[in-house]
């Protein structure tokens, strides 16, 4: 389950997505190398989540194409893992933590086959990896936000994918969970996998990602963190969003600290 070293992990070629007549992504042309932690960063409503959904085939493309591991999505669907936004599901749903993690194995099982001992031990292993072994049998509503996010991560681990897409995994998550999540993501990178993360917090971007893309409907800049998070690029991304000026100032100040 390792990636070929020749092909890029993820490529967007002139991807345009529209909801109705209104474009949310505009000619995005972006290549993400393999085996790294890659952040997609931009203001609210910039189309970050839509970019992930475009890669996963969850929204129709108005134009352009996406290639994952050098192939169209349909050919590599089984090698792709996904962590949706935590708010996208009903946490009062009557399933346990283990039930949710097992869902990561469903695609491999296919129609009708139920998870067996192999899947159960894999689920237990994934839960252990995110530090939730002790709540395995709990109903998912009785977890903290950080624990819920880690359940989603464990489910993605159970997918045993080579490319992972995570939508705001750090939003509303306590520091201990954030550290745990980040450690697991770093392990995935060390195993040669690509991890693409939608992230809204500029300040922590430098700590976590190897490379980032700044998005505001169009691609503003992409590359290593220090090269991308420049005052000029941030101004171009967040222009006109006065409420974020403070945040930009801080990110710039911190960006100056890193060489």
């Amino acid at each position, binding site marked *: 389950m390792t990636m070929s070293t020749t092909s890029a992990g993820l490529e967007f070629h002139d991807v345009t997505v529209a909801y109705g007549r209104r474009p949310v992504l505009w000619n995005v042309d972006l290549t993400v190398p393999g085996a790294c932690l890659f952040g997609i960063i931009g203001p609210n409503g910039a189309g970050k989540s839509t970019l992930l959904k475009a890669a996963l085939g969850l929204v129709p493309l108005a134009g352009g194409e996406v290639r994952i591991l050098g192939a169209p999505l349909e050919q590599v669907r089984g090698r*792709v893992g996904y962590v949706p936004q935590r708010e996208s599901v009903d946490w009062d749903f009557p399933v346990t933590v283990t039930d949710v993690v097992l869902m990561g194995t469903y695609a491999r099982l296919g129609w009708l086959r139920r998870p067996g001992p192999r899947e159960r031990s894999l689920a237990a292993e994934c839960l252990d990896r995110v530090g939730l072994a002790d709540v395995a049998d709990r109903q998912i509503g009785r977890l903290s936000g950080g624990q819920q996010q880690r359940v989603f991560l464990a489910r993605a681990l159970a997918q045993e994918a080579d490319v992972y897409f995570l*939508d705001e995994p750090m939003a509303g998550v306590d520091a201990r969970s954030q550290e745990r999540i980040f450690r697991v993501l770093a392990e995935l990178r060390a195993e040669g996998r690509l991890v693409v993360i939608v992230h*809204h917090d500029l300040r922590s971007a430098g700590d976590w990602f190897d490379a980032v893309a700044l998005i505001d409907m169009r691609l503003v800049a992409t590359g290593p963190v220090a090269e991308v998070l420049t005052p000029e690029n941030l101004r171009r991304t967040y222009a006109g969003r006065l409420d974020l000026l403070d945040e930009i100032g801080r990110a710039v100040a911190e960006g100056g600290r890193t060489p």
Partner: protein
Amino acid sequence: MVDDPFPAAWIPPYNTLVVAAGVASVGFAAGVVGCFAVLRRRALAGDAAAHATLLGVGLAFLLGGGRRDLPLLLAGALSTAIAALLGLVLIGRWTRTRDDAATAIVLGVSFGAGITLLSGISARGIPGSAGLEQFLLGHTAGLTAADATILGVMSLLAVGIVALFLKESTLVAFDPLFAAASGWPVTLIDYALVVLVAVMVVVGLPAAGAVLVTALVVIPPVTARQWTDSVGVMLPLAGIFGLVAALSGVAVSSAVPRMPTGPLVVIAASILLTISLLIAPRRGGLARWLQARRTVAAWADGRLLEVALRLDSDGPFTREQLLAKAPGVAADSAFKRLVRSAALEPVVTRAGTDAWRLAVWGRELAAERSRRVAAWTEVLEAAREDARGHLTIDVPSPEAILGAARMKAIRESAAAERGAGEARPGQPGQPGQPGQPGGGAGG
């Protein structure tokens, strides 16, 4: 059949038994299939489909040349029920009408058309049309053993399909986005579930009628959800509740002449529901009320102790002094508990008729509580998400919950922040707060 030991005299009870068995399996299947209608939030779509069945019954009656052939009438009912669901999908896709309005429109239009058609048929006095209005509110008295067998077999088929595709249905009901991303045909599974609900609505028509059959599909699952946190338990439990409701409704109506079964089935189901809403552990109203009371009491007890510690440093204090400094809804009963504790464990000691002192143990308790409150306030300040994830109203020790190392880091960052805040006055928003509220809507 030559040696049949139960000759003619046994035929009526045999018929009754078959009808009872048929109705029982209809109730069971309605509960099971209804679980996914409820979990996937399709209950109202099911109601629209149910109201559309009358139109199909009338059309099938006319097409069949006035025969009251149950399978034919139910086939008609199913076709208009599915047409109604299709209408819902089309309205949702091609117009900007919202879901709830679309449902109300489809329900109203199809029910109106159905009633008009049935009234027209009965006004013309077409022979055989006398019993058609029974589909409105349900009536099982006229069911033959053959009819009931068909209903029962269809019900068991529906249960079988749900059991077979339990994994897929649960996945799509819980997280359709993830299901689609991992390659499952979510729309297909969704449509299959809705069609299954339509089938159950049609099969339930003789028992509960078009107006009330949705109750048979929706109420048992909601009842079952009160008692369990697992889909695997919820399904059979909802089935059993549905079975009990359907059977008792039919039994009572058979004892009362010309009583439609639908309302009785619904009454039986809602009795089970009411009991469950009240007394189920954890989710029940009673349990929640007790929990709320305990929460208020725990907070009041803690507050009272804290204030008592402050007053105690100036010597004995009175009830009035204490309550004046610790106002709150439950302060009065908290004081009673505090005084009562004087006899059991020495939290306070009596120093006069209305004069109290904190005992050693009480002082320790109060000091620990003040320390925890202060520590959590610091966590709220410096690491809001940690507090949001772990703080509970009984104020647990933050070190025990977050770990001593994490608490130390939070204290240090809080101290650094205070220093920074003083150095840069007028800076809007403090740095160092991880995350942002509502930052999830990134698309």
